[in-house]
């Protein structure tokens, strides 16, 4: 047993209102520099939708992540042999056109325009070339399903649905969507790290944050293609790749990452998970339908004395173990089993988990009256607006029973709370539903509390930073600056 600690996340999709505050908080702090304009370390997608970069989930197109070949895990995009051929021109690297050309507006034209009969306008100009451009796409072009026949229709996850289900999904009065905020998953088996020819990408031992050493990155761009979530970006100005750093300077000073802190819907949870690093390879090789369960197995119980002992032996501080015991992420993922990893079939073992969105109450309008489609409070799961198969493809590698379990539990809890507060459902029904959903009354209360009444400190259980392991004690902090993925010792301008 080789116990390590990992700062992990849960996003509760039912609570996301799609306001993009998180994206802006991140952009303002980290990616408002030249070369990073197009990067959205945090972005919010509308699902069904094609996401950012367009169709990132389609690995036939991007060749991201791992695949199993002859009992071994192999990167789809590169490898020891192939790196030699890929290095001059990476065949799977997305180009700017797969994202969008960042733009601003020529605001001074508003002030300097000569007097005339027409209102002056600020025309869009490219932030790369500085020339006038016609805006053709942006990072959220299909927000709120806008243009869904053009965009949402191309969502790769729809392949799990039958033609009938697809028609249903897009029938106008049944149109359904939810938001899907994404950051780097700080994976346990990161494809970006394994693909980097220079060995510039690494996991921090103490908390598992994945960083790109700016000093050692040589711009071979392998990580961009290899990350199946497309969360590593190429800075065209410095010739280096950059990615989400989970706001580690904030974490080290006890603050939540900017996107977490600013989240309007309070959908985000952060905490430590202890895991057994010896078993990563074995777990990542499990068959698709076992992956969700297998990853849970990898996460160790921080209350188990044997785990605590092993954690101490590998240098994990007592207060970090305590943080792991209080971790909201541990509760969501392991105790309650209602948070699922995104696209675990990419086999990077992402450490950001999602509570899938509940299905909205379904009703139909027959021209005269609005008719409820179901007897009870919630519709039958199988007649739901967003087919289970869709969520299963997104969050359970096709193992729909995992999604069904989560949704059933969520429904039972809501029914139960309804019985408590409104009283239009009788308690007996509610308790039967809880029982069927594998949930005790105590658990239901706990989930309800952490979902709706959670305080800042309950959502973010940040392990304390340890001065004795602080970097300035070990290494020249100036020298260290560039190796942590952000911050420059030299002017970050393109080399000669």
């Amino acid at each position, binding site marked *: 047993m080789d116990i390590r600690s990992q700062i992990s996340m849960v996003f509760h999709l039912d609570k996301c209102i799609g306001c993009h505050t998180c994206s802006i908080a991140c952009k303002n702090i980290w990616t408002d520099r030249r070369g990073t304009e197009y990067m959205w370390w945090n972005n919010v997608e509308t699902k069904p939708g094609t996401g950012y970069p367009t169709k990132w989930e389609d690995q036939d197109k991007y060749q991201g992540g791992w695949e199993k070949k002859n009992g071994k895990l192999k990167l789809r995009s590169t490898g020891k042999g192939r790196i030699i051929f890929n*290095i001059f021109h990476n065949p799977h690297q997305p180009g700017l056109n797969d994202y969008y050309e960042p733009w601003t507006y020529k605001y001074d034209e508003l002030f300097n325009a000569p007097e005339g009969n027409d209102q002056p306008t600020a025309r869009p100009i490219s932030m790369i070339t500085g020339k006038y451009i016609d805006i053709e796409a942006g990072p959220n072009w299909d927000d709120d399903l806008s243009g869904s026949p053009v965009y949402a229709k191309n969502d790769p996850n729809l392949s799990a649905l039958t033609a009938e289900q697809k028609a249903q999904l897009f029938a106008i009065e049944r149109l359904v969507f939810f938001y899907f905020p994404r950051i780097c998953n700080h994976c346990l088996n990161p494809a970006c790290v394994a693909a980097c020819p220079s060995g510039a990408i690494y996991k921090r031992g103490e908390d598992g944050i994945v960083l790109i050493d700016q000093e050692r*990155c040589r*711009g*071979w761009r392998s990580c961009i293609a290899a990350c199946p979530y497309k969360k590593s970006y190429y800075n065209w100005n410095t010739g280096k790749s950059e990615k989400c750093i989970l706001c580690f300077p904030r974490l080290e000073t006890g603050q939540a990452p900017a996107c977490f802190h600013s989240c309007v819907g309070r959908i985000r949870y952060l905490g430590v998970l202890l895991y057994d690093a010896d078993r990563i390879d074995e777990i990542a090789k499990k068959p698709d339908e076992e992956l969700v369960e297998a990853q849970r197995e990898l996460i160790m119980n921080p209350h188990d004395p044997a785990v605590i002992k092993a954690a101490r032996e590998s240098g994990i501080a007592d207060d970090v173990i305590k943080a792991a015991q209080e971790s909201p992420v541990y509760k969501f993922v392991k105790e309650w089993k209602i948070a699922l990893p995104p696209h675990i079939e990419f086999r990077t073992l992402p450490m950001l988990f999602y509570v899938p969105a509940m299905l909205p109450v379904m009703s139909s309008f027959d021209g005269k009256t609005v008719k409820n489609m179901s007897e009870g409070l919630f519709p039958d799961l199988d007649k739901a607006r967003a087919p289970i198969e869709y969520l299963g493809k997104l969050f359970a590698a096709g193992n729909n029973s995992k999604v069904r379990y989560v949704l059933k539990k969520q429904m039972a809890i809501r029914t139960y709370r309804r019985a408590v507060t409104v009283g239009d459902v009788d308690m007996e029904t509610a308790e039967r539903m809880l029982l069927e959903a594998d949930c005790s009354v105590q658990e239901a209360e706990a989930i309800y509390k952490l979902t709706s009444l959670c305080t800042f400190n309950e959502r973010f259980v940040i392990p304390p930073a340890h001065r004795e392991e602080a970097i300035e004690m070990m290494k020249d902090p100036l020298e260290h600056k560039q190796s942590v993925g952000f911050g420059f010792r030299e002017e970050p301008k393109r080399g000669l």
Partner: protein
Amino acid sequence: MTQNTTILDYFNLFWFAVLPYLALFTFLLVTIQRYTRRGFTYTSLSSQFLENKMHFWGLVPFHYGILTILFGHLLGFLIPRQVMLWNSDPLRLYVLEVTAFVGGIFTLVGLVNIVLRRLADPRAKVVTSTADWIVISILLFQVSTGLLVAIFNSWGSFWYAASISPYFWSLLVFNPNIAYVTPLPLLVKLHIISAYFLVLLFPFTRLVHILVVPNPYLWRKPQLVRWYWNRRKIRTPEYLVKRK
């Protein structure tokens, strides 16, 4: 010796006995200095992200071509005897010459595509510096003279091993013998001189990316974790005391 020949001698001396050392020492000093002081600037400076299509037709033929050629030149320098022995059979000589020529053509085609791409694509243009244009120009000159030599002074793989290789060795042991190169045709001389310029300018340009080709990738483990301390010992009291 007449006055005229002396000037020519000085000329030859400069181009073939002074310039190579100037180039080599600048190369060594500046690459090391740049690596230690401004290591951040060692990158491929790839622009594939900005323009993804023409990139293939420029970069791929160029790199395969130039690597073949460089490898050939290196062989002639390191094992001239074996190369000559190989060439003793005309068929094998043909094979070698044709391979080298095709490599040269690949390089040239790649370079031309690179130039066209950087001129035609507005985004690629944004990231093209003056230093890039200088490198591209010298490379173009280098490949063109090389190809012309192959056409007009053929069987280079033969006489290279016999004349230039010993000349390089004489440079390397600090006993330059320019008598090997002075009788060579002008084209060959230009080819050599422009190579020295490439070496001289190397550390000031993007060419430094050659020095950071990622060979350790071939034998490292796929996953990397960085610890800044010994995690087995960090919490033991002795460890903390020792560090103070």
